[in-house]
């Protein structure tokens, strides 16, 4: 609908007739005050406004209209017979008009203008409606996602708790199976019976290792602090823990000087422990294991990027001369319970490297491996030298 505002009935009448003939819906107001009342009540696609009126003049009406958020988009077309001077026209535009037509006007041209403005208004309105609709949809979707996220967080925490309790409570009966099997074996069995009992005991021991590994995996959900730690000290601790294993396998370790970076020391010790014990475990028969650890800095969190001394990322390389693996299985080795080798060949639970991956990700880093069957493996870990937040984020999967 189009609103015509004029204090003179004859003007209203002639313009109204012109528009009606051209199939427009028309409303009229005989003063500025009257116009404002109507604008607030009804919806108009265009306002044709006389400039000179008693009381509130056209400029004031326009300023009022453009001041309201509800009405600010309605195009205003000024129509004046008296104020045809340039400064009045300018004032018309600055007060919010989209056009200023002086009388006498050409009806055909005026109709074309009206048609254009009314179409523009309708298009703008349509766009605004779509925008509003989209905003509402986004809001609703965001609320939905937040809710789902919250639920996921809760169920994730519950699962971790569950895994912890389950594995913890599994330890107790298992320990007894081992203890009593040993007693039965030592006191009552010989030869064949004792061999079967040995199998029970070694299976139970394997299950215990599995439970312990699961336990440490679920423990990773707590969020301790990052501490600036010298990496060589962490590796030294790891080697002390693995002392017997290293001695048994007659392995040599070559460790370069490494810097201090912000880590959770206990967790990174576990990373080194798992990778180094893997290297010892998967060594080639009749070959003395040799493990090398060295590092560089780089600017990007990337395995391939150039080494740069002042980079914000630290890259650790751990290489061995073991049996290696086919790189097509690269994804598999970091997934829980995936083993590339039969249990008879090499022992292990298949959790070790998934713990490595989880820890590295908690440190906002990445880990990968390069390998060829029969030619050894090099693990590469990229970690930020400085962590942005003091605490590790709880892990959501």
């Amino acid at each position, binding site marked *: 609908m189009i609103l015509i505002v004029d204090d003179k009935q004859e003007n209203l009448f002639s313009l109204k007739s012109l528009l009606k003939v051209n199939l427009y819906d028309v409303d009229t107001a005989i003063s500025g005050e009257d116009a404002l009342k109507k604008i607030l009540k009804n919806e108009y696609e265009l306002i044709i406004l006389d400039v000179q009126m008693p009381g509130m003049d056209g400029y004031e009406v326009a300023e009022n209209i453009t001041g309201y958020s509800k009405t600010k988009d309605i195009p205003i077309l000024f129509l004046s017979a008296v104020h045809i001077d340039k400064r009045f026209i300018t004032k018309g535009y600055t007060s919010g008009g989209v056009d200023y037509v002086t009388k006498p006007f050409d009806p055909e041209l005026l109709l074309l203008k009206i048609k254009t403005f009314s179409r523009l208004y309708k298009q703008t309105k349509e766009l605004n409606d779509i925008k509003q609709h989209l905003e509402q949809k986004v809001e609703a979707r965001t609320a939905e996602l937040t809710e789902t996220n919250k639920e996921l967080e809760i169920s994730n925490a519950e699962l971790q708790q569950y895994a912890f309790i389950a594995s*913890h409570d599994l*330890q*107790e009966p*298992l*320990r*007894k199976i*081992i*203890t*009593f099997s*040993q*007693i039965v074996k*030592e006191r009552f069995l010989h030869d064949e019976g004792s061999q079967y009992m040995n199998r029970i005991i070694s299976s139970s021991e394997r299950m*215990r290792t599995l439970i312990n590994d699961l336990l440490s995996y679920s423990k990773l959900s707590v969020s301790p602090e990052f501490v600036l730690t010298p990496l060589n000290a962490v590796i030294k601790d790891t080697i002390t823990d693995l002392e017997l294993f290293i001695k048994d396998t007659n392995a040599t370790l070559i460790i370069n000087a490494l810097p201090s970076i912000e880590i959770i020391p206990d967790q990174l010790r576990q990373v080194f422990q798992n990778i180094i014990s893997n290297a010892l475990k998967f060594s080639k028969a009749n070959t003395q294991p040799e493990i090398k650890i060295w590092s560089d800095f780089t600017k990007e969190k990337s395995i391939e990027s150039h080494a740069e001394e002042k980079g914000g990322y630290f890259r650790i390389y751990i290489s061995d001369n073991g049996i290696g693996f086919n790189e097509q299985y690269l994804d598999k080795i970091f997934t829980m319970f995936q083993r590339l080798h039969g249990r008879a060949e090499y022992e292990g639970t298949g959790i070790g490297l998934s713990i490595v991956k989880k820890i590295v990700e908690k440190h906002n880093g990445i880990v990968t491996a390069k390998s060829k069957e029969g030619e050894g493996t090099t693990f590469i870990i990229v970690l930020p030298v400085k962590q942005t937040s003091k605490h590790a984020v709880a892990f959501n999967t």
Partner: protein
Amino acid sequence: MTKNNRFLLVDDDADDVSLFKEVLEEVNPSIDFISASDGQEALNVLRQHQNNSPDIIFLDLNMPRMDGKQCLTEIKKDPALQRIPVIMYTTSCQSKDIEETMLKGAICFITKPSNLKELKSILSSISQNLRGNLEKSLRELSNTTSTFIVC
């Protein structure tokens, strides 16, 4: 006549109590063995026999009525009992349990071994060093066994 040494084991698990008793008898038959099946019973036993206190207490963590942590707190609060050394003896090896009990005054944290030989060497080391440097001997033991021992 010298008084026999006395070990108190506080544990609700009857299997563990009987194994412990069996191994202890084998290690040193002259040691008196007493047991309690939860923290509250342990406190009752300790308070009833104040002039014949045990030389050492082995304390499990998870028990009904009163758990090991609470029992440890009560023992350390009681002037008549606080001097008796307490060793935590449990399935858990969670760092928060270890930290908490060591701070409360336990001298050592031992995870129940599944191997009787290891239990035997632990108990024999403890019985031989009761009057000596118990912590030091246990620390040395922790290097040679696969049992989890923290002192």
